[in-house]
């Protein structure tokens, strides 16, 4: 993989010369007015720009990246681990020296729409401009107005810690040629306004695709694979499919349940965890229910795809018998009080384990990390005092965790491959923070 990447990168240096000639042509920002169909169903269309911007910043969860833990909002500094090195998020407060205080609305638009900085330099696509390019100009302007109304924070940007050759920004011309198309959101006349609003939010500002899709060795996403689920590189959480695949995706979800999850962080059956807890906490809980419904309607319309990570049909393996017995004992000792004997959990408190995609999906990473690290769903307005799950890393051995997960993945109608102690051991050392 690394050799392939390197070969690609080297082969591409030639292209950079061409880029110098053609790639850096500055273009006048094209205007992309908000579609009239969409304006009609935009719940914040009539708010003043700063308030609209505040709302849109939540829709994009800008703060999820542009605030370090314990740091100032929008002042950046969060280290985002990638397979190419660490990207440090930037200061987007209106500080004139260290933030974007000297930017114009056109500069800001160009960053979102074209993925270029104030001086025309290519931005690293950890900033999801392949999605943000679909944001309408009016919304970009509102976001900019909101950011300019924030308190300026002096925090010089931390230089990225990327390995060669990824540290060479001009090389991004190649990545862009492969994976970035500048464009505007086009509403689809075959669908109603609600669906289109959902598509606009999900595929643009919401950038769901950035996590919920598999990425190739070069960090790109193939169009056919969009939203079929993927491992978030370096962070080691698996963002599940959002298509209508029954086992892997949203096939068994009602539109109401999707709305509830995004609004409260919990539903009758499930709870968010890992990076999605952050998205709900910082972002989606603040959105109007009409917008959440629109996103749910759009996502629920996506057909299952070939690349959905479906759990394979499993035949009973003999090695599992020991694991199953041991797992049943661990379950009775550590899990049963909350998740109950029949794995049905407790509504809005403890998730259902039977037929839970996070439990039975092919990738065992989420299930293993949930048991190792535990967690609280986010404290939201709709669920301010969530029920938590203790971390078991300190109390259960690799063998016990493998056994209990194998048991859970093969009880109450669940059928999924066994979990090995080696897998558990592998994720024990993954940094949790």
């Amino acid at each position, binding site marked *: 993989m690394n050799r392939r990447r390197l070969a690609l990168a080297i082969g591409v240096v030639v292209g950079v010369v061409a880029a110098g000639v053609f790639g850096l042509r500055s273009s006048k920002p094209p205007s992309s007015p908000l579609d009239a169909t969409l304006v009609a169903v935009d719940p914040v269309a009539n708010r003043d720009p700063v308030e609209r911007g505040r709302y849109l910043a939540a829709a994009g969860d800008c703060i999820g990246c542009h605030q370090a833990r314990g740091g100032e909002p929008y002042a950046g500094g969060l280290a985002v681990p990638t397979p190419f090195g660490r990207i440090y998020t930037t200061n987007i407060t209106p500080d004139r020296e260290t933030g974007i205080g000297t930017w114009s609305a056109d500069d800001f638009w160009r960053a979102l729409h074209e993925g270029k900085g104030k001086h025309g330099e290519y931005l690293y696509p950890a900033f999801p401009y392949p999605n943000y390019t679909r944001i309408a100009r009016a919304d970009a302007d509102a976001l900019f107005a909101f950011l300019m109304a924030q308190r300026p924070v002096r925090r010089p940007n931390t230089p990225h810690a990327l390995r060669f050759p990824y540290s060479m920004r001009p090389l991004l011309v190649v990545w862009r040629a492969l994976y970035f198309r500048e464009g505007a959101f086009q509403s689809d006349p075959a669908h109603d306004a609600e669906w289109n609003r959902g598509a606009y939010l999900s595929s643009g500002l919401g950038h769901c695709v950035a996590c919920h899709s598999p990425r190739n060795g070069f960090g790109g996403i193939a169009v056919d694979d969009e939203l079929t689920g993927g491992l978030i590189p370096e962070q080691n959480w698996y963002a599940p499919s959002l298509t209508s695949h029954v086992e892997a995706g949203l096939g068994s979800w009602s539109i109401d349940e999707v709305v509830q999850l995004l609004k409260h962080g919990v539903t009758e059956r499930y709870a968010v965890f890992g990076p999605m*807890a952050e998205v709900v906490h910082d972002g989606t809980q603040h959105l109007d229910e009409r917008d959440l419904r629109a996103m749910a309607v759009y996502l629920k319309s996506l057909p299952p795809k070939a690349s959905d990570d479906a759990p394979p049909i499993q035949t009973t393996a003999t090695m599992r018998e020991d694991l199953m017995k041991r797992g049943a004992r661990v379950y009775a000792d550590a899990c049963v009080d909350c998740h109950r004997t029949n794995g049905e959990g407790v509504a809005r*408190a403890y998730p259902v384990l039977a037929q839970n995609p996070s439990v039975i999906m092919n990738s065992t990473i989420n299930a293993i990390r949930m048991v190792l690290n535990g967690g*609280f769903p986010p404290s939201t307005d709709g669920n301010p005092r*969530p*029920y938590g799950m203790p*971390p078991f890393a300190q109390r259960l051995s690799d063998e016990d965790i493998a056994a209990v997960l194998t048991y859970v993945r093969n009880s109450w109608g669940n059928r999924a491959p066994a979990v090995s102690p080696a897998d558990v051991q592998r994720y024990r050392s993954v940094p949790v923070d």
Partner: protein
Amino acid sequence: MRIARLVAAATCLVASASAQTVATDRPFEDTIAQRLRACTGCHGDRGAGVVDSAFPRIAGQPVDYLFAQLRAFRDGARTYAPMNFLLARQSDGYLREMATYFSAQPQDPRVVDTRALKPVDRAAFDAGRALVHEGRPADGVPACVACHGPTMMGTLPAIPALAGLPRDLMIEQIGSWKTGGHRSPEPNCMATIASRMSGGDIVAAATWLSLQQPAGVPEAPREALPIACGRAP
């Protein structure tokens, strides 16, 4: 008659089967204790600590102390990855409720009783007792009791109880102040004090303190402390 018996037997079977399913699951209650099961796995029932564990007892600690620690974990000012992860998206209101709950919980004497059954380094124990009660004025080390209270059960509003905490945890914590790993609010009084303690001092104080049975409640607030201490905003 036979049929009646059969029916009775069948009824019993059904009854015992349903009694069994009911009996296996404990009734679910919406209580703060239930919501905080995530904490008690390591900190023990009601936060009273766990026998043979290096995780601290949190029961009975001053409420503002617990609240400040919870916020410091959430915001990254205090580093312990599992706690940083757990608390990342919890509100001030909920953290305050957690602190209030654990602050009001009783002690479990078994945690210290069990420790006392093991061999103790007698010299360290005696040196620790002296250091805790008298400090070492020549080196500018104040007596622990001057701030943490005569029974080391803490002082309101935010100075923690140390009596009966795990020895290894206290060595690690005081050591972190000494080596600069602990970023407490300025003035960082514990960093100053720890810098004046030797490794032997730290082990001695921790040894004696870990064998004290926690009893009683935190002291009323004091007007003057022997050294200026910052507090979380």
